[in-house]
């Protein structure tokens, strides 16, 4: 059994890059079709085609309620899963590259903790003051607050940890994350039941807030960030040898690191603002891609985007369909998938170290 398994992974490994890309691309396409059909609203291919042609204007008939629900709820949700998956996985790969540490995840720069803190404050105190209605807070104020909080925490960590050593930065990250955690605890302690419930759901990650309006806001931010991370793939390869060797290969290390952190904060901040804090995608996906495509960052960042979106879409489809008509927060699903895989990775590293 074990031998057969190993042969299987080698089979995938030995394929040319084109075939591998084809397999991963096909997987994503399959998942997108699956996700658009499955759920509380079951949609057939004919209905999908009809709804799309109506929305483009090929058919003059009015959209039915079912079609409208599919177009305005299901589709943006799938698009959001793809975007958030891309943002988290690419950011994870980029962070692991600039910190030369395979255990780093995007949350290290404090963007998730900062976003969570501001989201908690917005939810608890604004709801208490009842200046706005709950819908307005959940859909407009919460994303903006989360985004600002994420950027602010990242900036703080960057200022604190700027210097020669990466350890300093990681320590600054730990400190700011801890401070945010304490403050969140304080806010949560103060919260009433409704606010507490909203915050808990947000903190577990939830893609149900998807809408075309939200997508038009975050799509450019995430795509620009992912594009920047991809463009730096050579610099990341050089950084694997350490700052000094990268410098001698012509990389402006400080500039690349600073900008990478900025774009990671931008991408993850946008993702967190709409979808809440979704764990493990940023940590696990780059490792999976490295297993198949090797450590070269050119493929790592490209296929992290592909696999990250596939995985998050799979997790979200599961969370929509598992406990119908209810819904699991997607963060629970990703953590349940990610944690055992991470344990497997640790065991694999252990056995490799003794080889």
């Amino acid at each position, binding site marked *: 059994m074990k031998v057969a398994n190993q042969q299987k992974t080698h089979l995938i490994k030995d394929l040319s890059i084109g075939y591998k890309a084809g397999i991963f691309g096909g997987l994503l396409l399959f998942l997108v079709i699956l996700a658009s059909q499955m759920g509380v609203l079951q949609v057939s291919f004919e209905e999908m085609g009809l709804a799309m042609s109506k929305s483009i204007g090929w058919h003059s008939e009015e959209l039915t309620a079912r079609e409208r629900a599919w177009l305005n709820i299901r589709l943006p949700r799938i698009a959001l899963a793809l975007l958030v998956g891309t943002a988290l996985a690419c950011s994870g790969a980029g962070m692991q590259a600039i910190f*030369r540490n395979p255990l780093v995840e995007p949350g290290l720069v404090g963007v998730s903790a900062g976003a969570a803190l501001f989201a908690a404050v917005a939810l608890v105190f604004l709801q208490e003051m009842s200046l706005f209605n709950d819908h307005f807070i959940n859909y407009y104020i919460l994303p903006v607050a989360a985004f600002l909080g994420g950027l602010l925490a990242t900036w703080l960590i960057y200022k604190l940890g700027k210097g020669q050593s990466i350890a300093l930065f990681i320590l600054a990250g730990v400190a700011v994350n801890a401070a945010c955690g304490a403050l969140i605890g304080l806010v949560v302690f103060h919260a009433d039941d409704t606010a507490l419930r909203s915050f808990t759901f947000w903190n577990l990650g939830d893609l149900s807030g998807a809408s075309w309006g939200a997508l038009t806001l975050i799509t450019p931010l995430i795509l620009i960030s992912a594009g920047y991370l991809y463009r730096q793939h050579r610099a990341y390869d050089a950084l*694997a*040898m*350490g700052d000094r060797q990268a410098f*001698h290969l*012509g990389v402006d290390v400080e500039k690349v690191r600073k900008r990478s952190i900025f774009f990671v904060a931008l991408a993850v901040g946008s993702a967190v603002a709409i979808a809440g804090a979704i764990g493990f995608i940023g940590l696990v996906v780059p490792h999976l891609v490295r297993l198949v495509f*090797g450590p070269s960052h050119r493929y790592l960042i490209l296929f992290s985007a592909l696999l990250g979106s596939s995985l998050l879409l799979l997790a979200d489809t599961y969370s929509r369909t598992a406990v119908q008509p209810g819904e699991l927060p997607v963060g629970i699903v990703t953590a349940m998938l990610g944690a055992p895989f991470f344990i497997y990775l640790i065991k694999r590293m252990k056995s490799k170290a003794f*080889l």
Partner: protein
Amino acid sequence: MILEAQEVSIKIGGKTLLRGIDLSIKEGEFWTIAGCNGAGKSTLIRALSGDLHPTQGKIMLKNRWLTELPSLEMAQMRAVLTQHNNVNFSFKVRDLITLGLMPHGIPEEAASDKIAEIIVECGLEELQDRSFESLSGGEQQRAHLARVLLQVSFSKGDPLLLLDEPTSALDIAQQHRMLQLLSSRVMNGLTVIAIIHDLNLAAQYADHILFLKNGETVAQGRKQQMMCSSIIEKTYGQPVSVWTHPTVGCPYILAEPCPYHHEKVKANGHRHGSTKPLNTMSQPWAINKNNPTEA
């Protein structure tokens, strides 16, 4: 003049690491920097490679101030191998070597002949598809050497290579193989500045030597003038005698027991109850010392 240092001093945290180093290196020279541990050799290489800015003095690379050169342009003019090089994530040896093309913006396919040539020259044919972390220390060092050789072979203008202990992990055969490779490149116009601890290797392959002690220059110049026992003793505090290599004809250095070693021998001798007089222990070397061969 490819590289020129004027009165370079470096102070870090109140400690002076280098003081008043003057150096001028011409195209096609093979320089060795030597000196005891902590003498400032690596600091000097770091300063010459633009990694560490001098607190005083200036360094010019091809008539341009080093502080004003952007890192990419510098990487196109020279390659540097630092002392400790661990590589994160399991990169293949070939991928690592190919990184040498990075500053020149040349795609791998366009340089495949050159890459293959360097892999053969460094004896890495069978290792090229292994992951870097699975190699032994000496193999890793050769892989990094191959990378910097690739980087420097696409340099604009006269190429320059700075190496911090490039042979420290190699066995005797590989040491000579790599240094022969370097000196054949020097024949073709490469300039090399390398820290080499083994003075006999330096004497065989380099043409210029700089001796450092406590961050200051003891002596510098052509190896024929530098390889004399007084300079080496002044640098290391270690008595040596200089001979001529029987076949190659270059200077050859033999270390002699210094007073510190005598004390140790004496202590050991007493502990084991030996009655042998200490003087006879150093007799063979004492005879050698009376045979001056430096002429």
